[in-house]
């Protein structure tokens, strides 16, 4: 961290002015729960750190008739505590609850988890299943809206430009008849990087699947949707036999690697096991 400069702007204009003048690597920081360990491990050597954490206007959870809007700086703890999220999008609540531990959740932010873009990012699968939109601000221009399934480019790589920050994440409130499930498999109960994580949202009527959204983490270079399995489920009766037949197809949709946490074979196998479980859980919730 030789010669590292630090700036904590009170508003976005000051932030972008400072960025324009800086040559070299600029790193935005919110909670710092990934950035600081990376800097200490010297896998990251920024010239300038721009601390976004006092931009109060980016901390919120808002509900309208049709949408949920979450400010990018909302901490994971806030999401865990949110009655709105628990009611409207329990899979997001569940993922937030399983991210890191109590201490990291007090600092980690939703925008930070997505911008860090780990293939195992905890908040990505539920937001993909909810078809979330990322809203950004880029320099002095207005910014853009990016569908989350077009946001990730590779491990720790996103479409964000050097001077672009996430301002909020939005999604349409799921219909009353839609129910979901989120499962995270890790080597331990807390503070675990996922071996496999998945989020499922199903809309079912008379035991026939009307709409399916399946998203996975830690089994590909980025968090991914499984469009093929979604299409297989849609229009099919949700019998045990059909679910088992379709769940197995997921193994062809993913490309897990072997690493210190698990082998690729184990991840592939577990993905189809957990997908069956998640579909069944979502169906159970629909019956209540």
């Amino acid at each position, binding site marked *: 961290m030789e*010669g590292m400069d*630090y700036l904590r702007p009170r508003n976005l204009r000051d932030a972008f002015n400072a960025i324009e003048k800086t040559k070299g690597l600029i790193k935005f920081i919110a909670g*710092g729960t990934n950035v600081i*360990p990376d800097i*200490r*491990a010297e896998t990251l050597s920024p010239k300038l750190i721009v601390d976004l954490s006092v931009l109060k206007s980016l901390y919120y959870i808002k509900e309208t008739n049709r949408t949920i809007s979450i400010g990018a700086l909302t901490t994971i703890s806030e999401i865990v505590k949110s009655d709105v999220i628990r009611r409207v999008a329990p899979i997001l609540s569940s993922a937030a609850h399983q991210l*890191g531990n*109590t*201490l*990291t959740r007090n600092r980690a932010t939703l925008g930070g988890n997505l911008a860090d873009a780990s293939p195992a990012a905890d908040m990505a699968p539920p937001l993909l299943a909810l078809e979330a939109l990322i809203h950004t601000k880029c320099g002095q221009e207005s910014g853009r809206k990016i569908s989350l399934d077009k946001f990730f480019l590779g491990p720790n790589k996103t479409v964000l430009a050097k001077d672009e920050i996430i301002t909020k994440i939005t999604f349409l409130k799921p219909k009353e008849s839609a129910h979901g499930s989120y499962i995270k498999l890790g080597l331990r109960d807390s503070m675990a990087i996922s071996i496999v994580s998945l989020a499922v949202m199903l809309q079912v009527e008379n035991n026939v699947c009307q709409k399916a959204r399946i998203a996975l983490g830690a089994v590909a270079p980025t968090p991914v949707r499984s469009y093929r399995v979604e299409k297989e489920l849609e229009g099919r009766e949700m019998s045990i036999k059909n679910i088992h037949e379709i769940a197995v197809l997921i193994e062809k949709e993913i490309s897990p690697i072997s690493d210190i946490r698990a082998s690729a074979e184990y991840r592939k196998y577990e993905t189809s096991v957990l997908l069956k479980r998640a579909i069944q859980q979502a169906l159970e919730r629909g019956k209540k």
Partner: protein
Amino acid sequence: MNKKVVNFTVNGEPHEVLVETNTLLLHVLRDELGLTGTKYSCGTGQCGSCTVLVNGEPILSCIFLAVAAEGADIVTIEGLSAPDGTLESVQEAFLDFGAIQCGFCTPGLVLMAKDLLNKNPNPSETEIREHIKGNLCRCTGYVSIVRAIKSCSK
């Protein structure tokens, strides 16, 4: 190297320190201010022994830049007991239940226990275990710690 002046309060006392931009809050507390109750262990935010309260919320000071503490109210384990040395009820409970062996995890755990009881005065054992998941103890096996915290519930 860039140096910055930072102002914050620690345990109610105002402090002004000159730090490098890459200095962590943990090191300012221990090395500049001599408050060695907060411990440096894993250095990656995984063990919880560096726990302090910043603006009332427990955070990991080994991954928190000192410059980011500008204007903050910080409480360390030293700030928990009364000025005359009287211990908080959570601290007494840890002593009564033998929840301290080497003592290294204790400051972080006591602060987390206090945080839990402030938010949830009557936690279940599950809720206690859930709340302290970020604090590792290599000595006790956690049973005495959980009992100590449970004894403080209303």
